[in-house]
């Protein structure tokens, strides 16, 4: 016996169904009845009823990517406001390794960072980390907030919404799963994106939103409606709400990061005078608008400035690297550097491929998800358990890394080079994220995707061992 249908708006306590229905997320079972415990929209999957909330606070989950604001600097950690009932902490060791430094020189109160949730413990202490592509401090741009439950809507089906906004406005956009969004582009475009995000938040529960947003953006930016070829962005009302777990989002974020990484790489390339012209134009635009700030804090120079002051840049790096070398005296420094380089190179080569694969895979996953309504619940469970396994593996691999001192040393080294980057400015992560990459490898391995990935999986330890045994 069911009393509601898909997409119905229900209130807490409302009886949704009786007898042979299962209570999904946002519902509870009482005396054989399935009731809603939220103000939200009904989502039916065969016999499983869920309610997707229209408003909700962000609950931190391990592995989520979030945008946080430094609100405290202590002796060995930063306090980070992650727009949640639970404050986050970023241990200094995530940035420096074992060494203690003046933390506020790296991140100060008010800085906004892109972070990954490393762990949420029993007392809801949220430990944050910077391992991952694109992680670090944002420079420039604006922060827009959106209800965390509406983040999937902002992303859209396979990223349709967010990519459309990016295309139309030329802004860089990074979405945190905690409902904070970073936008950087031309000043007026930033404001347009901000208004658009607010509009999406307000109308998230209505259908045909992507098209309306697109028309609006076209009117605002081009002064005319788009040509009639956007049929493929067929909007499905429940897509956006179906997975509040944001599986699709995570992939989106990865892709986003990959994009940025690609861009960063181009910026690095700039040093070698290998300039992509269009990219350059874009950077210049930003440069102009940012002139005001360049003198505010020299150590924070944006990467765009690199073109102008190559020498400075190198010097800075040298300086910061000196710092690290002092810390790892027992290791052979040169060798570490060498191996580090090797790793970086390797990753540079292979990363793109991985990303491509990831994307393909994630899209598959999403498609699966969307069609799931026709499938058995068992399958969904399978998918979930798979997820869990992956997570376990991650943990394992992390443990492995920590177990071996040698690996730790390199880990630290890599972290430090990362922090150096961060000190230089935003979004310039050198490829030092073993764990992150390793996770992907593990995933690939599990799914037997390609021999290439397996080889990468094996490669890690030998490289590490070489560096430390010397």
């Amino acid at each position, binding site marked *: 016996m069911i009393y509601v249908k898909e997409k119905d708006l229900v209130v807490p306590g409302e009886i949704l169904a009786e007898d042979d229905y299962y209570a999904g997320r946002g519902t509870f079972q009482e005396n054989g009845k399935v009731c809603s415990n939220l103000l939200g929209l009904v989502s039916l999957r065969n016999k499983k009823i869920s309610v997707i909330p229209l408003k909700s606070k962000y609950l931190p989950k391990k592995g989520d990517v979030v945008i946080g*604001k430094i*609100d405290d600097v202590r002796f060995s950690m930063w306090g980070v406001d992650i727009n949640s009932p639970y404050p986050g902490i970023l241990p200094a060791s995530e940035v420096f390794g074992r060494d203690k430094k003046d933390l506020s020189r790296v991140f100060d109160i*008010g*800085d*906004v960072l892109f972070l990954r949730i490393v762990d949420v413990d029993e007392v809801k202490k949220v430990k944050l980390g910077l391992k991952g592509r694109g992680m670090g401090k944002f*420079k420039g741009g604006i*922060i827009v907030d959106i209800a965390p439950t509406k983040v999937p809507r902002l992303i859209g089906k396979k990223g349709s919404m967010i990519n459309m906004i990016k295309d139309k406005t030329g802004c860089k956009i990074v979405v945190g799963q905690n409902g904070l969004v970073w936008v950087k582009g031309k*000043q007026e475009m*930033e*404001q347009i994106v901000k208004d658009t995000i607010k509009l999406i938040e307000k109308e998230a529960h209505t259908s045909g939103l992507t098209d309306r947003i697109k028309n609006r953006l076209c009117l605002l930016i081009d002064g005319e409606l788009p040509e009639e070829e956007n049929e493929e962005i067929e909007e499905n009302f429940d897509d956006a709400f179906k997975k509040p777990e944001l599986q699709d989002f995570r992939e989106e974020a990865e892709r986003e990061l990959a994009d940025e990484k690609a861009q960063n790489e181009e910026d690095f390339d700039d040093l070698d005078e290998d300039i992509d012209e269009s990219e350059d134009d874009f950077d210049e635009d930003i440069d102009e608008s940012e002139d005001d700030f360049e003198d505010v804090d020299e150590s924070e120079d944006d990467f765009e400035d690199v073109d102008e002051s190559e020498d400075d840049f190198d010097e800075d790096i040298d300086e910061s690297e000196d710092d690290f070398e002092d810390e790892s005296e027992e290791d052979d420094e040169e060798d570490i550097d060498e191996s580090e380089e090797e790793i970086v190179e390797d990753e540079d080569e292979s990363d793109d491929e991985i990303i491509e694969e990831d994307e393909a895979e994630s899209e598959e996953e999403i498609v699966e998800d969307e069609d799931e309504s026709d499938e058995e619940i068992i399958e969904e469970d399978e998918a979930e358990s798979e997820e869990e396994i992956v997570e376990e593996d991650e943990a394992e691999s992390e443990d492995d890394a920590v177990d071996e001192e040698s690996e730790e040393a390199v880990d630290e080294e890599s972290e430090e080079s990362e922090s150096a980057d961060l000190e230089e400015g935003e979004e310039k992560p050198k490829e030092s994220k073993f764990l992150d990459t390793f996770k992907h490898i593990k995933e690939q391995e599990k799914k037997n995707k390609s021999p290439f990935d397996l080889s990468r999986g094996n490669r890690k330890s030998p490289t590490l061992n070489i560096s430390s045994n010397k």
Partner: protein
Amino acid sequence: MNVVPEISKRSIVKLINNGKRADGRDFDQRREIVVEPNIITKAEGSAKVTLGDTQVIVGVKPSIGEPFADTPDVGVLMTNCEMLPMAAPEFEPGPPSPESIELARVVDRGIRESELVDLEKLCIEEGKKVWMLFIDLHVIDYDGNLFDCANIAVMAALLNTKLPTASIVDDELVLDEENLMDLPVRDKVALSTFVKIGNGMVLDPSLEEEEVLDARLSVGVTQNNSYISSMQKGGEVPLTRDEILDAVHTAIATKDEIFEYLE
């Protein structure tokens, strides 16, 4: 303590230095004002005013009491403000914060010094009985610029305040509840608050502008003769002479916008 993200601050400053505001307003443009007078039946005068998304409710309650010794023939005005915890996540219950006291006093000064209410007409028996007006400000939603919103709300409430006619018969105070008199209001005052951010002074700051302000200046201007009746500077950064004079000029030039809502 709410920390403002550094990049948000920079973005707002950058906009203002380029002559723009985040919400697209001009520097001397106020947000939308909505005045709802007479919303509380039990109060002798009341109003709810919305300025952008800032909302303030004002109730006026009269009572009869003794005048102050140095002004035996004038009535008494008391302005009190509560920044309710519902208005913002950082507002806490408890005794009035310094901010809420400042708000009450700035609004009070604007009303008092413009001699808007003819307080002499509120004297019932010299030295013994005068009307005391309690103006209670309730901030229910804080989205920037409480000063101007509160000032409009107080004005709107005073303009619809009605008092029983009071007289002394055989040394006894007699209140005639059937013959109500309008509060003797003879002028109006427009409070205009500016904030300095970067190189610009903007009127009617939004919350995000207020969070990053360098300095704040409120200017009260009377409807009759455009007298400056009250001013208050806030914030940690100094203002120049020209900035202040510009603000005063804008306050006078735009004051009628506010009075339109009070008709």
